[in-house]
């Protein structure tokens, strides 16, 4: 499962997501199934999903 597929799996579980912060090294810049979700690269080794109020709603590690 690709990195973007993994991220999308979480976004599907948390539909209130408006922004996904992802490790820069993973190379994901957009989520094809969720074009309205902003993808931002950061220097952490985990991903974080954020809702419209800026509240962090999920954190996860990518596998692969």
């Amino acid at each position, binding site marked *: 499962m690709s990195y973007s597929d*993994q991220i999308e*799996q*979480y976004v599907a579980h*948390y539909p209130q997501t408006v922004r996904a912060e992802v490790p820069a090294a993973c190379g994901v810049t957009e989520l094809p199934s969720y074009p309205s979700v902003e993808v931002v690269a950061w220097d952490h*080794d985990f991903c974080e999903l954020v809702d419209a109020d800026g509240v962090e709603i*999920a*954190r996860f*590690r990518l*596998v692969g």
Partner: protein
Amino acid sequence: MSLPALHHRKLVTTTATTNGITDVLDAIWAAVQPSVTTYADGSTRTAGSGTAWTWTRYQAAGVTQAVYGTPPTGSLAQRILFVGATTNPTPTPTMLIDTWSNNRLHIGLVKNAGTFNAWNAASPFTTGQFTGYTMIGTTLTSPVTITIFESEETIQIGVGIGTAGGVHGAGGGAIIDPDTNDAVDGESDGRIYGLWTGGSSTFNTMLNNAATNTFMNHGASSTNSHFVTFAPGTGTIVPTARENFYFSITAAQRTTRAGKFPGTPLYVTSTSNWVGRVREIRVIRPAIFGQRLDTTLGTIKGYVYAQSTSTNGDAVLLEY
């Protein structure tokens, strides 16, 4: 060159007072706390030496949220955490494939750990590399029983949930020996560190070639079994899986003419590389979870880790 052999010891099975996650974590604590000075076979257990890990319980306002273990040996400062909560923790715990579920039991692995920070912090031990948490088993229903096996560098847990006899399993630590002489195949200490779970349900033909609730196999969906290892020298998490599938073998197929039970090593691979041999865990004949197998009466060969507490089925032996 092979790593030192591990020796598995079984802790006495504990039963949670209720099916609440707090009581389940307390049942884990009851099994492993430093005041537990004997193993199930009566041998001495001293926290921090031999095979005995040193466990710590984390409570918030008297409510247990985490129990984490430090091994008696090893140079890579690994920690294994069992965690759970009744309400959404803040911050949200960092997960591995699964999504966080309140009132469920989860497991995580850290290497190169620093000082304990917070179990739900992005880095629970301030520094180091963290797998994230993954789920062990289904919704907790009574009775919930906890059986833990310690070795010098690994932990395996079997959780009985309800009365059906199915086992929900997980484990981790320095579980893989690359069995090569090439330094790049392992961490600086020659080991591969990994974490596995049977996933969100009981084992389903435990040694099957599938990711649907099997032993040391990996699937990408949240309900699947998961098995990951750290790429040596990095925090990169690699999907890992058994190379060998011995599912539904019969007792006859696994008994010699002399009446002995052969044990076959398990090898694991990732999609990109050979990973290595599972340390001192072997496939054996169908058996029942928790059984002790003696070479001759009183000489322990190992403990059975299997898919059921009530009927013979797919099984491995945790070597004593």
